[in-house]
């Protein structure tokens, strides 16, 4: 990504999508982004290999977690005005109900965008936005050149 000015600028969906397209794992999951104004929604269309429990069946908890992680990353990218991809430091996931074999949506809120750290909350839902299947709370390292928590690459 090119150097962005210090003040946040508007990032459009194509820039955001380009950032996402370049991440092979986002493609592996099949995550898509939708941006209306400044409201970003990540969409995970259902496919069979996202299943973690074939008996129920239910989405893999890790997949729901990964979707929320990616949503947080995209939201920070948006809030920062498009810089490098932030790195996850820690996440805490509450699983509220099992994910059904249907499309899943997620939206993130950047609680605080600091100089080096962003605090983010994310919710994922399927049928009803008010009835989320999972929630995530995490800290992300904003990409300065060589941040803390990063000893090896």
């Amino acid at each position, binding site marked *: 990504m090119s150097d962005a000015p210090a003040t946040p600028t508007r990032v459009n969906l194509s820039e955001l999508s380009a950032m996402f397209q370049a991440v092979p794992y986002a493609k592996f999951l099949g995550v898509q982004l939708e941006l209306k104004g400044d409201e970003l929604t990540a969409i995970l269309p259902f496919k069979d290999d996202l299943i973690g429990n074939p008996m129920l069946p239910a989405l*893999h908890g890790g997949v729901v977690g990964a979707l929320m992680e990616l949503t947080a990353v995209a939201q920070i990218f948006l809030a920062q005005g498009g810089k490098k991809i932030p790195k996850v430091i820690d996440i805490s996931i509450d699983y509220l109900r099992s994910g059904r074999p249907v499309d899943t949506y997620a939206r993130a809120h950047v609680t605080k965008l600091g100089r080096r750290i962003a605090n983010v909350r994310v919710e994922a839902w399927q049928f009803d936005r008010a009835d989320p299947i999972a929630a995530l709370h995490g800290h992300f390292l904003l990409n300065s050149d060589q941040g803390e928590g990063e000893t090896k690459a």
Partner: protein
Amino acid sequence: MSDDTPLWQRMATAGAMMIQGTPQARALGMRVVSITEARAVVEVDWREDLVGDPETGVIASGVVTTLLDNTCGVAAFAALSEPMSTATLDLRIDYMRPAKKGATIRAEAHCYRMTKTVAFVRAFAFDGADETDPVAAAQAAFMMGTSGRMGKNRRPPK
């Protein structure tokens, strides 16, 4: 095997099937290294399509999340004396450092406490043999099924 065989031993025999029967685990190419009482070790290989940062080629943290979640679940299952349904309550992960590009990620989980209703599990993810240098650490709690027959409060051996 007789019905007296502990669940984890039956699972160790069928360990590969546990993963093979989970579509997402199969999609990630996970494989069981070992299952012993209340413990599980599962690996996933680095792959081009699992990269999370195209600049560095480091595997996506989401892959590590899924691996840790799954390994914790297997460890909780391996602490049971008979099969029952489990559901992840919460999962906390600390990512200490990026995994080395190309390295196989190995998750080691231990269900250190099982109550009537909840299994408490800790796990670490490594990208090499050095046990003092984990890539990530996880703490998970699983709700154990509501079937009344289970719920013998037990502490798995160290």
